[in-house]
């Protein structure tokens, strides 16, 4: 046992103990920093980032929780357009992510996808998708393929509380349960779809119950508590891997920023925002790690500094990286080469 520290009452932390936890905290910090820096880059004069841009700040525990149990090369993750956080959590190089926002050739989608369409095939990141609800059947399909090929992998299919109201939700969940595919359907319930609160869009305010007609387990979980997320995702993934079929989880969380960059957020009160900040998933986890003696002030500060530098580097690099060549626009349309004209 180590010697007690008499100066303050902080528990003493050993070097390697808690490394996994600190890595998770660091990743949440990295995502937050990435998003906040993206906000600055988007809004400053001479705007370098264009198009729709949806920030993930406030919801980090969901993506990082999933990433903690995600088996790279075996599992799949498919997501809506609010996809920067998940991509970083699955290990995307922040340079490739920032370069995509800048539309550069070095971006994760070669500047052709943009903020809503981060993809990274080699880790099983099947993308950000822009049509609300459009990708839910795709998650059904990737899980179907995993079952078909007996890979033992599962698909994490994420979407917003607004997407539940698309017809694809009904069709995909019904079939997923019917075929017993290894999918985990996860609603990141941040309380609003653009400016529409859940209660104004869903006749059943308890979103988890919306899956009650599909004969699959469903549950609402605290999406701001990363340990809860990990435990619940793990259980659902185990079920999937055992061939017992899909699970529906509603991760309750909050987004700190507007829906996209042009949103003045008039539909939210100051009090609501302040309340939400008290349940910031990063602070919650930081406090827990300190209490468990897995994190010191110095470590936390060093992590903050380190992620700030990583993001600053990504911005510097994205800035100088080349745009795609104009002729590149004709590439990647088809996999086959036919004797086609342009």
């Amino acid at each position, binding site marked *: 046992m180590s010697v007690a520290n008499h100066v303050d009452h902080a528990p003493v932390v050993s070097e390697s103990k808690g490394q996994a936890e600190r890595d998770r905290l660091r990743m949440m910090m990295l995502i937050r920093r990435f998003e906040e820096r993206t906000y600055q880059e988007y809004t400053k004069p001479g705007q370098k980032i264009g198009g729709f841009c949806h920030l993930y700040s406030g919801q980090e525990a969901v993506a990082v929780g999933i990433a903690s149990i995600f088996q790279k090369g075996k599992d799949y993750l498919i997501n809506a357009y609010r996809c920067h956080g998940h991509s970083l959590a699955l290990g995307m190089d922040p340079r490739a992510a920032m370069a995509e926002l800048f539309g550069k050739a070095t971006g994760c989608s070669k500047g052709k996808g943009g903020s809503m369409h981060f993809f990274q095939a080699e880790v099983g990141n099947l993308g950000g998708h822009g049509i609300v609800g459009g990708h839910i059947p795709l998650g059904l399909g990737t899980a179907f393929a995993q079952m078909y090929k007996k890979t033992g992998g599962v698909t994490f299919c994420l979407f917003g509380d607004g997407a539940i109201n698309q017809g694809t939700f009904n069709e995909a969940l019904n079939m997923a349960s019917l075929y017993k595919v290894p999918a985990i359907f996860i609603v990141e319930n941040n309380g609003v779809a653009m400016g529409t609160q859940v209660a104004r*869009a869903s006749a059943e305010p308890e979103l988890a119950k919306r899956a009650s007609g599909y004969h699959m387990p469903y549950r609402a979980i605290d999406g701001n508590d990363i340990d809860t997320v990990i435990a619940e995702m793990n259980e659902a993934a185990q079920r999937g891997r055992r061939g017992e079929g899909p699970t529906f989880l509603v991760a309750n969380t909050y987004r700190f920023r507007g829906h996209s960059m042009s949103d003045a957020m008039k539909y939210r009160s100051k009090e609501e925002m302040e309340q939400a900040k008290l349940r910031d998933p990063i602070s919650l986890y930081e406090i827990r790690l300190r209490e468990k003696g897995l994190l010191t002030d110095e470590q936390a500060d060093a992590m903050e500094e380190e992620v700030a530098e990583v993001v600053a580097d990504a911005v510097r690099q994205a800035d100088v990286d080349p745009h*795609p060549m104009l002729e590149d*626009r004709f590439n990647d349309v088809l996999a086959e080469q036919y004797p086609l004209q342009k």
Partner: protein
Amino acid sequence: MTEEMERDENVFLMGEEVAEYNGAYKVSEGMLDRFGPKRVIDTPISEAGFAGLGIGAATVGLRPIIEFMSWSFTLVCLDQIVNNAANIRYMSGGQFKVPITFRGGNGIAHQLGATHSHRVETIYTRIPGLTVVTPSTPYEAKGLLKTSIRSDDPVIFLENEKMLNDAGDVPEEDYTIPIGVANIERPGNDITIISYGRPLQRVVRHAVQALVNDHGIDVELIDVRTLRPLDKNTLIESVKKTNRCVIVDEDYGYCGMGAGILHQIQKPCFDYLDAPIEYVHSDEIPVPFNHFLEEAMMPSVDRIVAAARDVCYR
């Protein structure tokens, strides 16, 4: 919309964020306050649901205005529009009419990427039973929208996000612009240029200026205004007069809107043409996110000027 809702209490507005948020693009600003939640109605993100709701309500006497945040999103409710709105009158032997206006932003805005930049005109224009209207100025937007709302048939009303802030002379009073009539925006004798909607505003008018001022080509510019039914006569008479024609849109060329228009005029004008009709359109690729690639894929002033000079052999 406000004037039409005051005029006819069967008119109502429904769509995502149209009420409490005052419109995703602020088009319906103030309308909730004015008309209340009975007539300005927010929906869940359920395009098939509320498009179908509108069609059903229209068949039994209401006159819905259904707003789509983007026409790109109507690909999830194509069935409602193409199967139901367009066919119910015909299938019932004329027993029902479907007086509904679907409106929203169409086409390429700026860096919205492949899924949010669809130009849906050919998807709907080729469907008998639908009327497709596409204004290119604020004046046209008001006049054509009023006619659309008063129409007893389903109207596809194509706006563009990048035209919502355009300023222009719009009379205060109640006026309508007829559906199915093209507008000769600038009379001329050397060549007919045909276009509509966003491309007119973005590049075609600039190209016409350049052709007239810098190249001495006396362009007759026609704004089609209605894609279905197409005012063939105005187009044909113009081309018979100028003997030359360029069509410009932002659609894909193959099976594109301009290809359909071209087919309508080339035979009646064949003996009058001094050159093949040119068609300037977008590249055959999904819309890229990168600003420069996106620009490059669309018709530019230079491409239009070059095509017109080609057709005029100068």
